[in-house]
């Protein structure tokens, strides 16, 4: 729970990714709302990763990024990755959301949240999930540089 005013979700609700969370979305990621959905009375550790747009990459000044995705396949793959992680690490909650479209410097491109009884599992699962999302899921980054050029990414943003 991030605020004392919000009540913990029952296990059977927060144990699955709520239908309302779109894995791939064109809207700004609402980290606060996602965190709220990751809370669980049996979770002693919540880890959140936010991948954000940096102002430069390999010495070149970045103006903005644009992400595209094959959404149906991406959503299915992310759900599978989260399900596997939930089972492997006994997670109380596992949430991921990736933004597509145009992103400004500092905006969040991807958020991964894991909740577990103990912190080792929450960190490990979180790193595993973001690694797989970056390397396996059909989502692509295009960097638009301040000099007017652009480049489809092969390299990680973070």
């Amino acid at each position, binding site marked *: 729970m991030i605020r004392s005013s919000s009540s913990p979700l029952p296990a059977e609700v927060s144990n699955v990714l709520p239908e309302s969370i779109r894995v791939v979305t064109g809207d700004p990621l609402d980290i606060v709302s996602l965190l709220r959905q990751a809370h669980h009375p049996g979770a002693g550790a919540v880890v959140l990763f936010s*991948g954000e747009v940096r102002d430069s990459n390999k010495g070149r000044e970045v103006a903005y990024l644009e992400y595209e995705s094959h959404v149906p*396949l991406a959503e299915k793959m992310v759900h599978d990755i989260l399900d596997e992680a939930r089972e492997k690490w006994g997670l109380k909650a596992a949430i991921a959301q*990736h933004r597509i479209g145009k992103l400004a410097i500092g905006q969040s*491109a991807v958020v991964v949240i894991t909740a577990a009884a103990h912190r080792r599992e929450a960190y490990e699962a979180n790193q595993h999930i973001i690694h797989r999302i970056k390397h396996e*899921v059909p*989502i*692509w980054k295009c960097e638009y540089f301040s000099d007017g050029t652009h480049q*489809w990414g*092969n390299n*990680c943003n973070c």
Partner: protein
Amino acid sequence: MKIHVYAKLKDYFSPEFELDAVAHNTDELKLRLLEINGEAGQILDSCRFAIEEGFIDHDHKLKENDTVIIIPPSSGG
């Protein structure tokens, strides 16, 4: 056969197009695509192929009315 390409592949092909030539599998499809743009060989070798139901490998038999999605290496995050 409908073809959808993404990301860097769009530097070589239209994002969506109809392939008139026949391709029974992804190996044949790659050859047909190289006939359209001979410079796409290297990137096509790094791509995965999928149909609506999910990823397919090189011995999956393609049907004439399939939509084939060509997926370059991921760069999300």
